[in-house]
Protein backbone atom coordinates (compact mmCIF):
# COMPACT_ATOMS: atom_id res chain seq x y z
CA UNK A 1 0.00 0.00 0.00
CA UNK A 2 1.34 3.40 -0.86
CA UNK A 3 0.70 6.36 1.38
CA UNK A 4 -0.39 9.43 -0.52
CA UNK A 5 2.54 11.86 -0.93
CA UNK A 6 0.51 14.58 0.70
CA UNK A 7 0.25 12.63 3.97
CA UNK A 8 3.91 11.75 3.79
CA UNK A 9 4.54 15.45 3.55
CA UNK A 10 2.33 16.22 6.54
CA UNK A 11 4.26 13.65 8.55
CA UNK A 12 7.59 15.01 7.41
CA UNK A 13 6.64 18.57 8.26
CA UNK A 14 5.40 17.48 11.66
CA UNK A 15 8.66 15.68 12.43
CA UNK A 16 10.83 18.47 11.11
CA UNK A 17 8.98 21.21 12.93
CA UNK A 18 8.92 19.14 16.11
CA UNK A 19 12.67 18.67 15.88
CA UNK A 20 13.19 22.34 15.23
CA UNK A 21 11.04 23.34 18.15
CA UNK A 22 12.84 20.94 20.47
CA UNK A 23 16.19 22.29 19.31
CA UNK A 24 15.15 25.87 19.79
CA UNK A 25 13.59 25.10 23.16
CA UNK A 26 16.80 23.52 24.45
CA UNK A 27 18.94 26.35 23.17
CA UNK A 28 16.60 28.99 24.55
CA UNK A 29 16.53 27.17 27.88
CA UNK A 30 20.31 27.33 28.15
CA UNK A 31 20.45 31.02 27.39
CA UNK A 32 17.55 31.85 29.71
CA UNK A 33 19.00 29.68 32.48
CA UNK A 34 22.29 31.55 32.35
CA UNK A 35 20.82 35.01 31.89
CA UNK A 36 18.25 34.56 34.63
CA UNK A 37 20.94 33.75 37.15
CA UNK A 38 23.58 36.04 35.72
CA UNK A 39 21.81 39.28 34.87
CA UNK A 40 21.15 40.31 38.51
CA UNK A 41 24.92 40.17 39.10
CA UNK A 42 25.83 41.89 35.87
CA UNK A 43 26.43 45.63 35.95
CA UNK A 44 28.86 48.10 34.44
CA UNK A 45 30.66 48.06 37.75
CA UNK A 46 30.96 44.28 37.62
CA UNK A 47 32.48 44.50 34.15
CA UNK A 48 34.88 47.32 34.87
CA UNK A 49 36.17 46.59 38.36
CA UNK A 50 38.94 44.24 39.37
CA UNK A 51 38.24 40.90 40.96
CA UNK A 52 38.96 40.42 44.64
CA UNK A 53 39.63 37.32 46.64
CA UNK A 54 40.17 35.20 43.48
CA UNK A 55 36.91 36.33 41.96
CA UNK A 56 34.78 35.57 44.99
CA UNK A 57 34.02 39.29 45.09
CA UNK A 58 34.58 42.25 42.79
CA UNK A 59 34.33 42.33 39.02
CA UNK A 60 35.82 40.72 35.96
CA UNK A 61 37.66 43.52 34.15
CA UNK A 62 40.93 41.64 33.48
CA UNK A 63 39.04 38.69 32.02
CA UNK A 64 37.09 41.06 29.77
CA UNK A 65 40.38 42.33 28.35
CA UNK A 66 41.64 38.77 27.98
CA UNK A 67 38.46 37.75 26.19
CA UNK A 68 38.89 40.59 23.70
CA UNK A 69 42.63 40.23 23.19
CA UNK A 70 42.93 36.47 22.62
CA UNK A 71 40.26 36.00 19.93
CA UNK A 72 41.30 39.25 18.26
CA UNK A 73 44.88 38.07 17.93
CA UNK A 74 43.72 34.64 16.77
CA UNK A 75 41.44 36.15 14.13
CA UNK A 76 44.09 38.58 12.91
CA UNK A 77 46.40 35.65 12.26
CA UNK A 78 43.93 33.03 11.05
CA UNK A 79 41.70 35.08 8.75
CA UNK A 80 44.30 36.03 6.11
CA UNK A 81 45.73 32.52 6.18
CA UNK A 82 42.30 30.93 5.96
CA UNK A 83 41.01 33.10 3.13
CA UNK A 84 44.31 32.76 1.27
CA UNK A 85 44.08 28.99 1.52
CA UNK A 86 40.52 28.83 0.32
CA UNK A 87 41.29 31.14 -2.61
CA UNK A 88 44.26 29.02 -3.56
CA UNK A 89 42.23 25.82 -3.37
CA UNK A 90 39.27 27.08 -5.38
CA UNK A 91 40.76 29.55 -7.85
CA UNK A 92 44.43 28.92 -8.33
CA UNK A 93 44.71 25.22 -8.70
CA UNK A 94 42.87 22.24 -10.00
CA UNK A 95 42.04 19.17 -8.01
CA UNK A 96 45.30 17.31 -7.72
CA UNK A 97 47.43 15.60 -5.15
CA UNK A 98 48.46 18.88 -3.52
CA UNK A 99 44.90 20.11 -3.01
CA UNK A 100 43.84 16.73 -1.70
CA UNK A 101 46.67 16.80 0.82
CA UNK A 102 45.80 20.34 1.87
CA UNK A 103 42.12 19.48 2.19
CA UNK A 104 42.89 16.34 4.14
CA UNK A 105 45.20 18.30 6.40
CA UNK A 106 42.52 20.92 6.96
CA UNK A 107 39.93 18.30 7.83
CA UNK A 108 42.29 16.61 10.24
CA UNK A 109 43.19 19.90 11.85
CA UNK A 110 39.48 20.59 12.28
CA UNK A 111 39.10 17.31 14.09
CA UNK A 112 41.99 17.76 16.48
CA UNK A 113 40.67 18.20 19.99
CA UNK A 114 41.36 21.47 21.72
CA UNK A 115 43.21 19.64 24.46
CA UNK A 116 45.81 18.56 21.90
CA UNK A 117 46.13 22.12 20.68
CA UNK A 118 46.64 23.02 24.32
CA UNK A 119 49.37 20.41 24.81
CA UNK A 120 51.06 21.46 21.61
CA UNK A 121 50.84 25.16 22.45
CA UNK A 122 52.25 24.46 25.88
CA UNK A 123 55.26 22.57 24.52
CA UNK A 124 55.90 24.66 21.43
CA UNK A 125 54.93 28.27 22.12
CA UNK A 126 55.11 28.39 25.90
CA UNK A 127 58.19 26.27 26.46
CA UNK A 128 60.30 25.87 23.31
CA UNK A 129 59.76 29.34 21.86
CA UNK A 130 59.89 30.78 25.36
CA UNK A 131 56.77 32.89 25.04
CA UNK A 132 55.57 31.77 28.46
CA UNK A 133 51.89 31.69 29.36
CA UNK A 134 50.86 34.73 27.41
CA UNK A 135 48.27 36.27 25.15
CA UNK A 136 50.71 35.64 22.30
CA UNK A 137 50.99 31.89 22.99
CA UNK A 138 47.24 31.62 23.47
CA UNK A 139 46.42 33.67 20.37
CA UNK A 140 48.73 31.63 18.16
CA UNK A 141 47.33 28.37 19.50
CA UNK A 142 43.75 29.55 18.97
CA UNK A 143 44.67 30.74 15.47
CA UNK A 144 45.81 27.21 14.62
CA UNK A 145 42.59 25.90 16.09
CA UNK A 146 40.15 28.09 14.16
CA UNK A 147 42.07 28.02 10.87
CA UNK A 148 40.17 25.01 9.46
CA UNK A 149 36.78 26.53 10.29
CA UNK A 150 37.68 29.66 8.36
CA UNK A 151 39.16 27.71 5.45
CA UNK A 152 36.12 25.46 5.11
CA UNK A 153 33.47 28.15 5.32
CA UNK A 154 35.39 30.50 3.03
CA UNK A 155 35.84 27.72 0.53
CA UNK A 156 32.13 26.95 0.53
CA UNK A 157 31.35 30.66 0.14
CA UNK A 158 33.80 31.08 -2.73
CA UNK A 159 32.54 27.97 -4.48
CA UNK A 160 29.01 29.36 -4.28
CA UNK A 161 29.96 32.36 -6.43
CA UNK A 162 28.52 31.51 -9.88
CA UNK A 163 31.01 30.32 -12.47
CA UNK A 164 29.50 32.75 -14.98
CA UNK A 165 30.86 35.68 -12.94
CA UNK A 166 34.33 34.27 -13.37
CA UNK A 167 33.78 33.73 -17.10
CA UNK A 168 32.61 37.29 -17.54
CA UNK A 169 35.47 38.70 -15.56
CA UNK A 170 38.07 36.70 -17.48
CA UNK A 171 36.47 37.53 -20.80
CA UNK A 172 36.82 41.21 -19.94
CA UNK A 173 40.54 40.79 -19.59
CA UNK A 174 40.82 40.36 -15.83
CA UNK A 175 43.73 38.46 -14.39
CA UNK A 176 43.00 35.77 -11.85
CA UNK A 177 43.85 37.99 -8.93
CA UNK A 178 41.73 40.84 -10.32
CA UNK A 179 38.83 38.43 -10.64
CA UNK A 180 39.33 37.25 -7.09
CA UNK A 181 39.62 40.74 -5.69
CA UNK A 182 36.84 42.44 -7.64
CA UNK A 183 34.24 39.73 -8.13
CA UNK A 184 34.80 36.65 -6.01
CA UNK A 185 35.74 38.06 -2.62
CA UNK A 186 33.00 40.70 -2.51
CA UNK A 187 30.40 38.09 -3.39
CA UNK A 188 31.76 35.51 -0.98
CA UNK A 189 32.10 38.00 1.84
CA UNK A 190 28.94 37.15 3.79
CA UNK A 191 29.90 33.47 3.83
CA UNK A 192 33.46 34.26 4.80
CA UNK A 193 32.20 36.48 7.59
CA UNK A 194 30.11 33.60 8.91
CA UNK A 195 33.29 31.56 9.13
CA UNK A 196 35.15 34.33 10.92
CA UNK A 197 32.26 34.68 13.34
CA UNK A 198 32.28 30.95 14.04
CA UNK A 199 36.01 31.24 14.61
CA UNK A 200 35.60 34.12 17.05
CA UNK A 201 32.86 32.21 18.78
CA UNK A 202 34.98 29.13 19.13
CA UNK A 203 37.95 31.04 20.48
CA UNK A 204 35.84 33.00 22.94
CA UNK A 205 34.36 29.80 24.29
CA UNK A 206 37.55 27.75 24.38
CA UNK A 207 38.84 26.66 27.75
CA UNK A 208 41.18 23.68 27.55
CA UNK A 209 43.60 25.11 25.00
CA UNK A 210 43.59 28.52 26.67
CA UNK A 211 44.40 27.33 30.18
CA UNK A 212 47.46 25.49 28.88
CA UNK A 213 48.78 28.36 26.76
CA UNK A 214 47.54 31.71 28.06
CA UNK A 215 47.48 30.61 31.66
CA UNK A 216 44.89 31.72 34.13
CA UNK A 217 46.40 34.78 35.78
CA UNK A 218 43.75 37.13 37.07
CA UNK A 219 45.95 40.22 36.70
CA UNK A 220 45.34 42.88 34.08
CA UNK A 221 47.61 42.15 31.11
CA UNK A 222 49.68 45.09 29.92
CA UNK A 223 51.24 43.51 26.82
CA UNK A 224 50.72 40.45 24.68
CA UNK A 225 53.51 38.80 26.64
CA UNK A 226 51.43 38.77 29.78
CA UNK A 227 49.38 35.85 30.93
CA UNK A 228 45.64 36.36 31.00
CA UNK A 229 42.42 34.65 31.94
CA UNK A 230 39.48 34.71 29.55
CA UNK A 231 35.89 34.92 30.74
CA UNK A 232 35.34 31.29 29.77
CA UNK A 233 38.27 30.16 31.90
CA UNK A 234 37.14 32.44 34.70
CA UNK A 235 33.67 30.92 34.56
CA UNK A 236 35.14 27.41 34.60
CA UNK A 237 37.30 28.12 37.61
CA UNK A 238 34.59 29.94 39.55
CA UNK A 239 31.89 27.37 38.86
CA UNK A 240 33.96 24.21 39.07
CA UNK A 241 35.93 25.11 42.14
CA UNK A 242 32.75 26.38 43.75
CA UNK A 243 34.36 29.76 44.41
CA UNK A 244 31.29 31.80 43.57
CA UNK A 245 28.36 30.54 41.56
CA UNK A 246 26.90 34.04 41.46
CA UNK A 247 29.94 35.60 39.87
CA UNK A 248 30.25 32.57 37.61
CA UNK A 249 26.76 33.16 36.23
CA UNK A 250 27.48 36.89 35.98
CA UNK A 251 30.54 36.08 33.89
CA UNK A 252 28.61 33.67 31.69
CA UNK A 253 25.88 36.24 31.14
CA UNK A 254 28.46 38.88 30.23
CA UNK A 255 30.01 36.39 27.83
CA UNK A 256 26.70 35.63 26.12
CA UNK A 257 25.90 39.31 25.76
CA UNK A 258 29.38 40.05 24.41
CA UNK A 259 28.97 37.34 21.81
CA UNK A 260 25.56 38.72 20.92
CA UNK A 261 27.03 42.18 20.38
CA UNK A 262 29.88 40.87 18.24
CA UNK A 263 27.45 38.95 16.07
CA UNK A 264 25.00 41.80 15.73
CA UNK A 265 27.79 44.14 14.72
CA UNK A 266 29.02 41.72 12.11
CA UNK A 267 25.50 41.19 10.85
CA UNK A 268 24.90 44.90 10.61
CA UNK A 269 28.23 45.45 8.87
CA UNK A 270 27.36 42.76 6.36
CA UNK A 271 24.01 44.29 5.55
CA UNK A 272 25.50 47.73 5.29
CA UNK A 273 28.07 46.33 2.91
CA UNK A 274 25.50 44.56 0.74
CA UNK A 275 23.25 47.61 0.70
CA UNK A 276 26.16 49.79 -0.32
CA UNK A 277 27.00 47.54 -3.23
CA UNK A 278 23.61 47.33 -4.84
Amino acid at each position, binding site marked *: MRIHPRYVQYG*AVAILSGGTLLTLAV*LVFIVVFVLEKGLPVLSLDFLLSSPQDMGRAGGIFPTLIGTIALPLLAILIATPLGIGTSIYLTEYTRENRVTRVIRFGTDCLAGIPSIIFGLFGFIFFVTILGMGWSILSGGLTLAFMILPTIIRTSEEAIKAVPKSYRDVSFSLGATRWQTVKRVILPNALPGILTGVMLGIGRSIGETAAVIFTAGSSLRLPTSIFDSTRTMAVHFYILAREGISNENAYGTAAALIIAVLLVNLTAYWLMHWFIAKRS
Partner: protein
Amino acid sequence: MTLIGEKGVRRILLATALSAISALLLIALFIIKEGLPFIFHYGLWNFLSSSDWEPQAGKFGIFPMVAASLWVTFGAMVVGAPLGVAGALFLSEFAPRPVMRVIKPMIELLAAIPSVVYGFIGVMVLAPLIRDYLGGPGLSVLAASIILGIMILPTVISISIDSIMAVPQSYREGSLALGATVWQTIHMVTIRAARSGILASIILGMGRAIGETMAVIMVAGNAVKIPHSALESVRSLTANIALEMSYATGLHRQALFATGVILFVVIIILNSAAMVAIRGKAARK
Protein backbone atom coordinates in the same frame (compact mmCIF):
# COMPACT_ATOMS: atom_id res chain seq x y z
CA MET B 1 48.96 44.04 -6.77
CA THR B 2 50.81 45.05 -9.91
CA LEU B 3 53.80 45.38 -7.63
CA ILE B 4 53.77 41.70 -6.76
CA GLY B 5 52.39 40.36 -10.00
CA GLU B 6 50.20 37.39 -10.75
CA LYS B 7 52.98 34.85 -10.11
CA GLY B 8 53.81 36.46 -6.78
CA VAL B 9 50.17 36.33 -5.73
CA ARG B 10 50.03 32.68 -6.62
CA ARG B 11 53.12 32.00 -4.56
CA ILE B 12 51.81 33.89 -1.55
CA LEU B 13 48.50 32.04 -1.75
CA LEU B 14 50.25 28.70 -2.03
CA ALA B 15 52.26 29.60 1.06
CA THR B 16 49.09 30.40 3.02
CA ALA B 17 47.48 27.24 1.70
CA LEU B 18 50.32 25.27 3.20
CA SER B 19 49.75 26.91 6.58
CA ALA B 20 47.06 24.47 7.66
CA ILE B 21 49.01 21.41 6.67
CA SER B 22 52.18 22.76 8.29
CA ALA B 23 50.25 23.47 11.47
CA LEU B 24 49.00 19.90 11.41
CA LEU B 25 52.48 18.50 10.82
CA LEU B 26 53.96 20.67 13.54
CA ILE B 27 51.35 19.51 16.03
CA ALA B 28 51.71 15.89 14.95
CA LEU B 29 55.48 16.13 15.21
CA PHE B 30 55.46 17.40 18.76
CA ILE B 31 52.73 15.14 20.06
CA ILE B 32 54.32 12.11 18.43
CA LYS B 33 57.78 13.08 19.61
CA GLU B 34 56.49 13.05 23.17
CA GLY B 35 54.23 10.03 22.86
CA LEU B 36 55.83 7.57 20.47
CA PRO B 37 58.75 6.51 22.70
CA PHE B 38 56.19 5.38 25.25
CA ILE B 39 54.26 3.32 22.70
CA PHE B 40 57.48 1.56 21.68
CA HIS B 41 58.41 1.06 25.29
CA TYR B 42 55.04 -0.26 26.47
CA GLY B 43 53.89 -1.94 23.29
CA LEU B 44 51.06 -0.67 21.13
CA TRP B 45 48.88 -3.71 21.63
CA ASN B 46 49.26 -3.67 25.40
CA PHE B 47 48.48 0.02 25.43
CA LEU B 48 45.35 -0.34 23.30
CA SER B 49 43.90 -3.60 24.51
CA SER B 50 44.46 -3.53 28.24
CA SER B 51 41.68 -2.28 30.49
CA ASP B 52 43.95 -1.49 33.41
CA TRP B 53 44.83 2.16 33.83
CA GLU B 54 46.82 2.45 37.02
CA PRO B 55 49.63 4.88 36.29
CA GLN B 56 51.06 4.65 39.80
CA ALA B 57 51.39 0.89 39.39
CA GLY B 58 52.87 1.27 35.90
CA LYS B 59 49.75 -0.07 34.14
CA PHE B 60 48.67 1.93 31.13
CA GLY B 61 45.75 0.43 29.24
CA ILE B 62 43.46 2.83 27.40
CA PHE B 63 40.92 0.45 25.96
CA PRO B 64 38.14 1.81 28.22
CA MET B 65 38.89 5.35 27.10
CA VAL B 66 38.86 4.45 23.42
CA ALA B 67 35.52 2.70 23.91
CA ALA B 68 34.18 5.65 25.90
CA SER B 69 35.19 8.21 23.28
CA LEU B 70 33.50 6.22 20.55
CA TRP B 71 30.33 5.63 22.59
CA VAL B 72 29.98 9.23 23.67
CA THR B 73 30.61 10.54 20.16
CA PHE B 74 28.14 8.06 18.72
CA GLY B 75 25.58 9.12 21.32
CA ALA B 76 26.15 12.78 20.50
CA MET B 77 25.61 12.08 16.81
CA VAL B 78 22.39 10.19 17.55
CA VAL B 79 21.14 13.18 19.52
CA GLY B 80 22.58 16.03 17.49
CA ALA B 81 22.65 15.05 13.82
CA PRO B 82 18.94 14.30 13.23
CA LEU B 83 17.83 17.29 15.25
CA GLY B 84 20.31 19.55 13.53
CA VAL B 85 19.49 18.44 10.00
CA ALA B 86 15.75 18.53 10.74
CA GLY B 87 16.12 22.05 12.09
CA ALA B 88 18.13 23.14 9.07
CA LEU B 89 15.59 21.66 6.62
CA PHE B 90 12.64 23.15 8.43
CA LEU B 91 14.20 26.58 8.73
CA SER B 92 15.41 26.75 5.14
CA GLU B 93 12.51 25.04 3.34
CA PHE B 94 9.37 25.55 5.41
CA ALA B 95 9.86 28.49 7.76
CA PRO B 96 9.19 31.93 6.29
CA ARG B 97 12.40 33.62 5.14
CA PRO B 98 12.28 36.44 7.70
CA VAL B 99 11.92 33.90 10.53
CA MET B 100 14.96 32.02 9.28
CA ARG B 101 16.92 35.23 8.92
CA VAL B 102 16.35 35.94 12.60
CA ILE B 103 16.80 32.43 13.93
CA LYS B 104 19.91 31.40 12.03
CA PRO B 105 22.21 34.06 13.48
CA MET B 106 20.77 33.32 16.90
CA ILE B 107 21.70 29.70 16.52
CA GLU B 108 25.18 30.62 15.31
CA LEU B 109 25.47 32.69 18.43
CA LEU B 110 25.03 29.57 20.50
CA ALA B 111 28.16 28.07 18.98
CA ALA B 112 30.05 30.74 20.85
CA ILE B 113 28.70 29.84 24.27
CA PRO B 114 31.67 28.26 26.02
CA SER B 115 31.53 24.50 26.27
CA VAL B 116 32.09 24.86 29.99
CA VAL B 117 28.70 26.57 30.29
CA TYR B 118 27.03 23.62 28.57
CA GLY B 119 29.00 21.32 30.85
CA PHE B 120 28.01 23.21 33.93
CA ILE B 121 24.33 23.08 33.01
CA GLY B 122 24.81 19.37 32.42
CA VAL B 123 26.13 19.01 35.96
CA MET B 124 23.54 21.23 37.60
CA VAL B 125 20.40 20.24 35.67
CA LEU B 126 20.81 17.12 33.58
CA ALA B 127 22.89 14.88 35.87
CA PRO B 128 20.54 15.21 38.88
CA LEU B 129 17.56 14.45 36.61
CA ILE B 130 19.24 11.29 35.32
CA ARG B 131 20.33 10.28 38.82
CA ASP B 132 16.87 10.75 40.29
CA TYR B 133 14.76 9.26 37.51
CA LEU B 134 16.99 6.70 35.79
CA GLY B 135 19.54 5.82 38.46
CA GLY B 136 23.31 5.60 38.45
CA PRO B 137 25.62 8.42 39.43
CA GLY B 138 24.05 10.84 36.92
CA LEU B 139 27.40 11.79 35.48
CA SER B 140 27.24 9.27 32.66
CA VAL B 141 27.45 8.34 28.98
CA LEU B 142 23.87 9.52 28.59
CA ALA B 143 24.52 12.93 30.13
CA ALA B 144 27.65 13.41 28.03
CA SER B 145 25.88 12.33 24.83
CA ILE B 146 23.00 14.73 25.37
CA ILE B 147 25.22 17.68 26.28
CA LEU B 148 27.56 17.05 23.34
CA GLY B 149 24.61 16.51 21.02
CA ILE B 150 23.26 19.91 22.02
CA MET B 151 26.68 21.50 21.65
CA ILE B 152 27.07 20.41 18.04
CA LEU B 153 23.60 21.63 17.03
CA PRO B 154 24.67 25.15 16.05
CA THR B 155 27.49 23.84 13.84
CA VAL B 156 25.27 21.28 12.12
CA ILE B 157 22.33 23.64 11.63
CA SER B 158 24.27 26.64 10.48
CA ILE B 159 26.41 24.91 7.88
CA SER B 160 23.54 22.72 6.67
CA ILE B 161 21.35 25.77 6.12
CA ASP B 162 24.13 27.42 4.13
CA SER B 163 24.48 24.43 1.84
CA ILE B 164 20.72 23.96 1.45
CA MET B 165 20.32 27.62 0.57
CA ALA B 166 23.06 27.26 -2.03
CA VAL B 167 20.95 24.77 -3.99
CA PRO B 168 19.71 26.74 -7.00
CA GLN B 169 16.04 27.64 -6.80
CA SER B 170 15.64 26.33 -10.34
CA TYR B 171 16.22 22.74 -9.11
CA ARG B 172 13.30 23.03 -6.73
CA GLU B 173 11.11 24.68 -9.31
CA GLY B 174 11.99 22.02 -11.82
CA SER B 175 10.91 19.32 -9.40
CA LEU B 176 7.77 21.09 -8.23
CA ALA B 177 6.78 21.70 -11.83
CA LEU B 178 6.89 17.94 -12.40
CA GLY B 179 4.20 17.50 -9.77
CA ALA B 180 6.38 16.58 -6.81
CA THR B 181 5.23 17.67 -3.36
CA VAL B 182 7.45 20.01 -1.38
CA TRP B 183 8.63 17.10 0.72
CA GLN B 184 9.38 14.91 -2.29
CA THR B 185 11.33 17.81 -3.75
CA ILE B 186 13.29 18.16 -0.54
CA HIS B 187 14.28 14.59 -0.12
CA MET B 188 14.80 13.79 -3.77
CA VAL B 189 16.34 17.03 -5.01
CA THR B 190 17.37 19.45 -2.30
CA ILE B 191 18.98 17.03 0.11
CA ARG B 192 20.77 15.31 -2.71
CA ALA B 193 22.15 18.55 -4.06
CA ALA B 194 23.13 19.81 -0.62
CA ARG B 195 24.46 16.44 0.53
CA SER B 196 28.13 17.26 0.67
CA GLY B 197 27.50 20.38 2.71
CA ILE B 198 25.21 18.55 5.14
CA LEU B 199 27.72 15.74 5.53
CA ALA B 200 30.47 18.28 6.09
CA SER B 201 28.43 19.89 8.84
CA ILE B 202 27.93 16.54 10.53
CA ILE B 203 31.62 15.73 10.25
CA LEU B 204 32.56 19.07 11.75
CA GLY B 205 30.07 18.38 14.53
CA MET B 206 31.52 14.93 15.07
CA GLY B 207 34.99 16.42 15.25
CA ARG B 208 33.78 18.80 17.89
CA ALA B 209 32.11 16.02 19.86
CA ILE B 210 35.04 13.64 19.91
CA GLY B 211 37.45 16.43 20.67
CA GLU B 212 35.44 18.16 23.36
CA THR B 213 37.27 18.06 26.64
CA MET B 214 35.97 20.32 29.37
CA ALA B 215 32.27 19.58 29.02
CA VAL B 216 32.98 15.85 28.95
CA ILE B 217 35.17 16.02 32.03
CA MET B 218 32.34 17.80 33.78
CA VAL B 219 29.46 15.48 32.84
CA ALA B 220 30.91 12.04 32.11
CA GLY B 221 32.21 11.34 35.60
CA ASN B 222 35.57 10.05 34.34
CA ALA B 223 35.49 6.52 35.78
CA VAL B 224 37.98 4.25 34.01
CA LYS B 225 35.78 1.41 32.84
CA ILE B 226 33.98 0.02 29.85
CA PRO B 227 30.35 1.02 30.26
CA HIS B 228 27.66 -1.67 30.34
CA SER B 229 24.83 0.82 30.15
CA ALA B 230 24.35 4.44 29.16
CA LEU B 231 23.88 5.31 32.82
CA GLU B 232 27.42 4.45 33.80
CA SER B 233 30.27 6.86 34.13
CA VAL B 234 33.09 6.80 31.59
CA ARG B 235 36.26 8.67 30.73
CA SER B 236 37.00 9.82 27.19
CA LEU B 237 40.47 9.99 25.67
CA THR B 238 40.44 13.78 25.84
CA ALA B 239 39.35 13.74 29.47
CA ASN B 240 42.11 11.29 30.28
CA ILE B 241 44.71 13.73 28.98
CA ALA B 242 43.28 16.85 30.56
CA LEU B 243 42.53 15.26 33.93
CA GLU B 244 45.91 13.79 34.56
CA MET B 245 48.31 15.97 32.61
CA SER B 246 48.62 18.45 35.42
CA TYR B 247 50.03 15.95 37.87
CA ALA B 248 51.71 13.53 35.54
CA THR B 249 55.45 13.05 35.45
CA GLY B 250 57.84 10.70 33.69
CA LEU B 251 56.30 7.63 32.10
CA HIS B 252 52.79 8.71 33.11
CA ARG B 253 53.20 11.99 31.22
CA GLN B 254 54.50 10.16 28.17
CA ALA B 255 51.53 7.81 28.38
CA LEU B 256 49.20 10.81 28.24
CA PHE B 257 50.95 12.14 25.16
CA ALA B 258 50.65 8.62 23.73
CA THR B 259 46.92 8.89 24.45
CA GLY B 260 47.07 12.06 22.38
CA VAL B 261 48.74 10.12 19.56
CA ILE B 262 45.96 7.53 19.66
CA LEU B 263 43.32 10.28 19.66
CA PHE B 264 45.10 11.79 16.68
CA VAL B 265 45.03 8.49 14.81
CA VAL B 266 41.37 7.82 15.69
CA ILE B 267 40.44 11.24 14.34
CA ILE B 268 42.42 10.79 11.15
CA ILE B 269 40.76 7.42 10.58
CA LEU B 270 37.30 8.92 11.18
CA ASN B 271 38.07 11.79 8.84
CA SER B 272 39.33 9.51 6.11
CA ALA B 273 36.24 7.32 6.44
CA ALA B 274 34.02 10.36 6.21
CA MET B 275 35.87 11.66 3.19
CA VAL B 276 35.61 8.32 1.45
CA ALA B 277 31.88 8.34 2.20
CA ILE B 278 31.45 11.78 0.70
CA ARG B 279 33.52 11.00 -2.34
CA GLY B 280 31.77 7.69 -2.87
CA LYS B 281 28.40 9.37 -2.83
CA ALA B 282 29.58 12.17 -5.08
CA ALA B 283 30.93 9.67 -7.59
CA ARG B 284 27.65 7.80 -7.73
CA LYS B 285 25.74 10.96 -8.57
